[in-house]
């Protein structure tokens, strides 16, 4: 038999000690008779050894403190990690897209200086627009801890949702969240939704947030609230409190 009679997969499995005994015995016999097969097996063994040696020392390097801290902080104080890849630029476009989606999804009319006015942007129309959230956003708020970024589709667009904080005050459970289109960075929308009949209902008018709220640094869940206080919500739940409330179905 020659190397042509043995697949590389079988010879590799032999080199890795992953062949069953009868098959291993047959390969061993073939090896004795054919140096080419033996050389092939040696090649597989050498590759494994070199890879382990090359990457083994990484294990002995100290783990950066920020990683250890991040693990310890899990669940207590939500951390938003810096997003890789997409960063600066396209802010104006981001604002346009976010606002367009907000108008479509949440049924609100919003305007910013320099942007196209969209319909009646009176406070009355904004208030009238509050109400139950779309199912995908509702489900995301149901299960996503504050500080975690969720991805969903709204109005046929990929949207990122970042719950900022949860509140359980004056007999009502609310969550403050940011809404952003990841296709561009910069502006996002902030809203507050509260539990009503086992679903999330938009309470505040979403507001455009000119300062980056997602992906541009670290922000604590509790630190996000600028809208909630206007609704009488002053004490964001801790990560643990939020987790317990979430586990009880926000009741």
């Amino acid at each position: 038999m020659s190397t042509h009679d043995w697949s590389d997969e079988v010879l590799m499995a032999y080199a890795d000690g992953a062949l069953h005994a009868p098959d291993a015995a047959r390969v061993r016999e073939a090896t004795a008779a054919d140096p080419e097969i033996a050389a092939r097996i040696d090649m597989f063994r050498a590759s494994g050894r070199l890879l382990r040696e090359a990457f083994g020392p990484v294990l002995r390097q100290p783990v950066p403190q920020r990683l250890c801290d991040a693990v310890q902080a899990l669940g207590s104080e939500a951390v938003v990690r810096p997003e890789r890849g997409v960063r600066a630029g396209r802010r104006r476009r981001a604002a346009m897209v976010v606002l367009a989606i907000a108008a479509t999804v949440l049924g609100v009319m919003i305007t910013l200086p320099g942007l196209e006015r969209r319909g009646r942007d009176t406070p009355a129309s904004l208030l009238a627009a509050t109400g139950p959230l779309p199912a995908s956003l509702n489900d995301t708020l149901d299960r996503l801890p504050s500080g975690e970024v969720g991805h969903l589709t709204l109005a046929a667009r990929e949207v990122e949702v970042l719950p900022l904080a949860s509140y359980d005050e004056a007999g009502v459970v609310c969550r403050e969240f940011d809404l952003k289109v990841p296709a561009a960075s910069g502006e996002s929308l902030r809203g507050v939704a509260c539990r009503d009949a086992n679903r999330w209902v938009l309470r505040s008018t979403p507001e455009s947030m000119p300062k980056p709220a997602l992906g541009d640094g670290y922000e604590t869940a509790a630190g996000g609230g600028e809208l909630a206080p206007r609704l009488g919500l002053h004490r964001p739940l801790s990560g643990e409190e939020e987790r317990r409330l979430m586990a009880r179905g926000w009741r």
Partner: protein
Amino acid sequence: MTMDFKTELTALLPRLRRFALVRTGSLDAADDLVQAACERAWVARDTWKPGTRMDSWMFTIMQNLHIDEIRTAATHGIRESAETLEVVPDQRWSQGMEAGLALEQVARIMKQLPESMRVVLALVPIEGLTYQEAADVLGVPVGTVMSRLARARSELMRRLQAGAGEAGWVAT
């Protein structure tokens, strides 16, 4: 359960960094990936059973995250993929590795291999998973893992020997 989870996760960090380094090509990117994976793992911690292998579970999370990020980068027209890694020299890649020329060559060649080859090399020879465990992490048949792995190891050694010939030394 919470303390067990965090303790086990912390103990695993060096290996998660190594896996991420092989996957991403730089320690900075590796640390970002590890942190993101830990955050995702925390959300999904109820799906991990204490007493079972956390390493395979975390590798699966990291693999999915890494694919997500490559897709996101592609969507945004950003070339943060294997092709970029090939041509961008990164001194930190070889930090902490043995100074031997052969080992530096291994690290360099790893960066040039396609994504599909790097991940099987990371999981099986480097992290010590079985073929079946690697197949479970990647969600592909075990035969696919074996054929990719055999090709990847052959290719690694072929390039290593070609490089050795040019440099005037021979890998043994």
